[in-house]
């Protein structure tokens, strides 16, 4: 860990929202709400489902409940956590877009926060004019922008169109121009949102390269991301925010492993009370689970895992039952379907009473992403039943192949063999 002076000190930082009291409608809404309150009815405009029960106390929702950490000069801090854990709130507070309801943030030096590239671009202004405007919005002064103008234009790679109104740019050009400006900020503290999620591979590479430059020049970076691969390769320290609090703070490998571990135990196991599992009067599910090869470890693209299905045979006498499963991605597209028949024709007849079947899924098959599983059962050639989603699981990247940090395209991600053969005789 860096031993430089503390440049960011966050003490007991909290942000709460009053539920339902956020007026964002018309006066008529407000009147309707007041009328409902008078009659003791629930607020008709109260936000639905925003509050996890633990964090909503009374009518107050604590998006962030007392977060403290310190950051020393030269550190690259990754902030990770699930959606809704409070990461974005923390980011907004650090960027001064909104103010905390308790606690303090103290920062030393010039702060630049990049929540978006090209903020404030005006479509009718030329690229050059927008560089000036965007630079000023990000906190550069006129002389600074003028001094770096040529460099910025060269970096953006759109010299030929720099005096064209931005509205005629492609979206890629706009991003490049916006990033070129951002890359020439020289803050002591840089706060970056998941800018990596947008843009193409080339842009990502530039962006990460620039972040490495900034950190190697001894400046401090705070990086909020879902991309564990990027976090692991860039950050010197990671803070995991969960339910508005710091769940872990330490070396990247440890914290990321703990975070992914908490994910793995999420919804990968299910059990039903007797007689209530999905199925028919002849056969029902009793339980099901996704089991990583190493118990408790997160699923990655490399790791093999099993899907175990527990059933109870209530009324099948002829032993004819073929259990299967379908793995679907989050667009409900079936990645693959498999049944016990894959193993061969001499399948043993199903036993009476409770039994388990297990399907092993090899490593280097799944791409990163979220998946769910439905269970099928066939008798003869006929579908006996098919369940709704019974299991869901997430496959993490775990490692990087090649220069790309993001999710590789493709439904599956097999590790294939490549050969390279020279065709000209050696000189």
């Amino acid at each position, binding site marked *: 860990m860096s031993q430089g*002076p503390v440049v960011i000190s966050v003490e007991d930082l909290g942000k709460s929202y009053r539920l339902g009291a956020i007026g964002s409608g018309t006066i008529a809404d*407000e009147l309707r709400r007041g009328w409902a309150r008078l009659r003791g009815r629930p607020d008709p405009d109260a936000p639905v489902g925003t509050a996890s029960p633990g964090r909503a106390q009374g009518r107050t929702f604590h998006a962030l409940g007392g977060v403290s950490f310190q950051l020393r000069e030269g550190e690259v801090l990754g902030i990770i956590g699930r959606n809704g854990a409070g990461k974005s709130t923390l980011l907004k507070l650090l*960027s001064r877009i909104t103010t905390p309801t308790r606690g303090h943030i103290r*920062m030393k030096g010039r*702060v630049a926060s990049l929540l978006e590239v090209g903020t404030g671009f005006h479509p009718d202004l030329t690229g050059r004019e927008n560089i000036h405007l965007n630079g000023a919005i*990000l906190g550069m002064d006129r002389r600074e922008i003028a001094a770096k103008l040529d460099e910025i234009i060269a970096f953006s790679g759109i010299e030929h169109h720099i005096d064209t109104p931005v509205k005629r740019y492609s979206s890629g050009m706009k991003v490049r121009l916006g990033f070129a400006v951002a890359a020439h900020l020289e803050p002591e503290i840089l706060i970056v949102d998941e800018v990596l999620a947008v843009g193409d591979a080339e842009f990502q590479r530039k962006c990460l390269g620039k972040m490495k430059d900034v950190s190697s020049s001894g400046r401090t970076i705070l990086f909020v991301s879902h991309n564990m691969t990027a976090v692991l390769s860039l950050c010197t320290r990671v803070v995991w925010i969960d339910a508005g609090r710091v769940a872990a703070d330490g070396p990247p490998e440890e914290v990321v492993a703990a975070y992914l571990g908490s994910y793995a135990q999420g919804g990968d196991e299910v059990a039903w009370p007797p007689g209530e599992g999905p199925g028919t009067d002849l056969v029902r599910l009793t339980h099901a689970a996704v089991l990583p090869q190493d118990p408790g470890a997160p699923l990655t693209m490399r790791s093999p895992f099993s899907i175990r299905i527990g059933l109870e045979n209530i009324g099948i006498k002829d032993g004819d039952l073929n259990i299967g499963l379908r793995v679907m991605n989050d667009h409900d597209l079936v990645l693959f379907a498999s049944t016990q028949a894959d193993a061969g024709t001499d399948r043993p007849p199903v036993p009476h009473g409770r039994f388990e079947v297990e399907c092993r899924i090899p490593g280097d098959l799944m791409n990163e992403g979220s998946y769910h599983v439905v269970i099928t059962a066939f008798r003869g050639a006929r579908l006996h039943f098919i369940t709704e989603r019974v299991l869901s699981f997430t496959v993490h990247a775990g490692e990087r192949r090649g220069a790309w940090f993001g999710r590789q395209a493709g439904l599956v991600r097999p590790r294939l063999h490549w050969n390279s053969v020279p065709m000209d005789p050696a000189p």
Partner: protein
Amino acid sequence: MSATPDATSAAPDGGFTTVIGPRRSLLAIDLAELWRYRDLVLLLTRRDIVTVYAQTVLGPLWVVLQPLITTFTFALVFGKAAGLAPPGMPGPLFYMSGLVPWFFFSSQVTKTSRTLTGGAHVMTKVYFPRLVMPISTTLSNGFTFLVQLAALAVMVAGYVLAGGLAWSPGPQLLGLPLLVLLMGALGLGTGILISAATTKYRDLSFLVGFGVQLLMYASPVILPLSRLQKFPTLLRVFELNPMTAVIEAFRAMLFGGAVPWGGLTYSAAVTAVMLLVGVMTFNKVERSFADIV
């Protein structure tokens, strides 16, 4: 306190240059910080001026055409058809000299009132002192006003050369810059107050344009106060409008005549209150509005 690259040595609080906490006084305006962002103010002003007439054929000519065409219409409708011609002055000059300050005030109110809702996409992404926005709007409105004032000056010169007007301004002409500041500040205060309120009540954005338009009829843009002496109730309504004395004073300073000092004092008081309440409300809303929009 805020981020300065060079204040580390002198800054209190263990050398921290930015301290973000929950409580801030509602009246706390960090003038030093605003000053550091002056380049942004100027660039935004320039953007406003340059982009409004982008892709128009007549371009900046619209700035003078708007009051000129309105003046012509008023002279025709009120001056000729309705027989409400103002006494002692050519009709077009009278209407134009009422419309130029009125347009300044009304664009101040309507444009600054859109600060928070219109600038939300920028303000939820990056921090800068939020007052930068209404201040740059004020400057670009001021620029438009100056162009229209120049058009008015050309008109006056035309009438004088043609012998239609004996122009004899008194020393009160020197008070004009102060009067312009007063109008700008009145519009700014009203505008940012409405801007803060629109984050909560969107209805107001409809009400503003309409309301300001109505308010013009309760000002001496069309009817001089001298014509209202027979209608004391109406006169009182006119006098409640803080722009009434401003427009009367504007004409008095331009063409000579008695400056309504009593009315101006009232306008100045209203301006001070509006600016104070406006800045306080704006400051209060600006802190949390990113959570609402």
